[in-house]
């Protein structure tokens, strides 16, 4: 008996039976999968630089190790072509970075999607869409690379909806949320280069995202008026938190900023400075919980922009909701600084529609992680 036939699996009569067997085992996200035959899985594995038993993703809270072979099986099922596998592997390594703390976004009620932003020459080589409808349907690489992450969470990390995945609602991005940055339309250096990787390299940047908020602005080309619209979205009470933000500027909006000479860091700094609500607003909206005053991170967030810093002593937790006169002047900003706002460019050439993706938690959530895609 060859080693290949010892791999766990099931014999089925035909491809249609295989698709149904995958459903019967609970191995899908609800959509049909490509049956992971040994031939297809071996071709997938051969397209990456990793040995079959190489661990691409280790999740320490529940002690689960996802090997390249298991990743390849799920990549076949997701519909990937073999040449996508280096990007898939890099994305799995990125969400497995200890700093990303995958257990949270994989299981929390927040119901986040795993966003993958692809940069560098690999994006056009694989046909990843960075332009019209980049978050929507139509491009195989976008749809299937993002889908692998969800299938790995379902099949290898056992993040079954309602069991370990306790998303209160979830959102459709949880099926797949992968796109390329439109580097040609961007007035700035590619996202991965701004994050320290060399020009000419290819990379993935991952993020745990709540559903996107369309930032519609057709009426101005003035940077501050335009960004006022974004700051309003970032400071909505519904998602206001000390967490991170992803902004994907439509090319039209990016061009307005570029014509006025606005850099990416200046844009992020302006947004951080203007995306705030008063502490009084937060209290009136029920966004200040008693437990915040017992959590150093959240207490710091509430008062980090207050002249003189946090009151000493802090208010008692039982006083959390009482609006004090001085709370009207205390500005509570989204995140802890401009570095918490990640800016990319993508979308169709026409239209003033950009996107803001909030992070998934009422806390700091998890950082952005960028990993190079192996050549």
């Amino acid at each position, binding site marked *: 008996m060859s080693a290949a*036939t010892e*791999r*766990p*699996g*099931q*014999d*089925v*009569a*035909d*491809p249609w039976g*295989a698709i149904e*067997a*995958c459903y019967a*085992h609970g*191995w899908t996200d609800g959509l049909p999968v490509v*049956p*992971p*035959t*040994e031939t297809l*899985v071996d071709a997938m594995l051969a397209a990456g630089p990793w040995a079959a038993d190489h661990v691409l993703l280790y999740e*320490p*809270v529940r*002690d*689960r*190790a*996802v090997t390249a072979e*298991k990743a390849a*099986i*799920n990549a076949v*099922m997701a519909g990937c072509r073999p040449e996508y596998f280096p990007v898939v592997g890099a994305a799995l390594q990125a969400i497995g970075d200890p700093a990303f*703390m*995958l*257990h*949270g*976004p994989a299981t*929390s009620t927040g119901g986040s999607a795993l966003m993958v932003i692809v940069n560098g020459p690999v994006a056009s080589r694989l046909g990843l869409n960075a332009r019209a409808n980049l978050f929507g349907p139509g491009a195989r690489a976008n749809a299937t690379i993002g889908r692998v992450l969800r*299938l790995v969470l379902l*099949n*290898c990390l*056992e993040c079954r909806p309602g069991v370990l995945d306790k998303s209160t609602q979830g959102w459709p991005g949880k099926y797949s949320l992968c796109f390329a940055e439109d580097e040609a339309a961007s007035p700035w250096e590619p996202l991965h280069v701004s994050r320290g990787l060399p020009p000419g390299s290819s990379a993935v940047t991952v993020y745990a995202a709540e559903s996107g908020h369309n930032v519609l602005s057709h009426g101005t080309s003035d940077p501050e008026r335009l960004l006022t619209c974004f700051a309003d979205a970032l400071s909505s009470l519904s998602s206001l938190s000390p967490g991170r933000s992803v902004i994907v500027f439509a090319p039209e909006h990016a061009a307005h900023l570029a014509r006025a000479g606005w850099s990416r860091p200046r844009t992020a700094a302006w947004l951080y400075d203007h995306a705030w609500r008063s502490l009084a607003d937060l209290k009136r909206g029920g966004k200040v*919980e008693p*437990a915040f005053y*017992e*959590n150093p991170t959240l207490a710091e967030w509430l008062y980090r922009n207050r002249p003189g810093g946090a009151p000493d002593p802090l208010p008692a937790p039982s006083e959390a909701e009482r609006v004090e006169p001085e709370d009207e002047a205390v500005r509570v900003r989204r995140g802890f600084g401009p570095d918490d706002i990640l800016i990319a460019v993508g979308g169709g050439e026409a239209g003033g529609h950009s996107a803001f993706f909030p992070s998934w938690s009422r806390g700091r959530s*998890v950082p952005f992680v960028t990993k190079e895609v192996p050549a």
Partner: protein
Amino acid sequence: MIRILDPTLGTAPTPAALPLAPRPARLSGVTLGLLANRKSNGMALLDRIAAHLRERHGVAEIVRVAKTNASAPVSE
């Protein structure tokens, strides 16, 4: 006939790898370890449980440990 491969990790690690400590017959005088997972109000809940076990069952010492973050593993 075609063969499809199992995309899961198979059987999850069994508890046998980390056997339970012997169960004490009574809680009186024992040292109790409590691990807080850092979810909101979790510490407050464990405080109440600890007080209850002290008063009603005579638990002696209580060792409190908290994760750094609900999403992180327990640090060594």
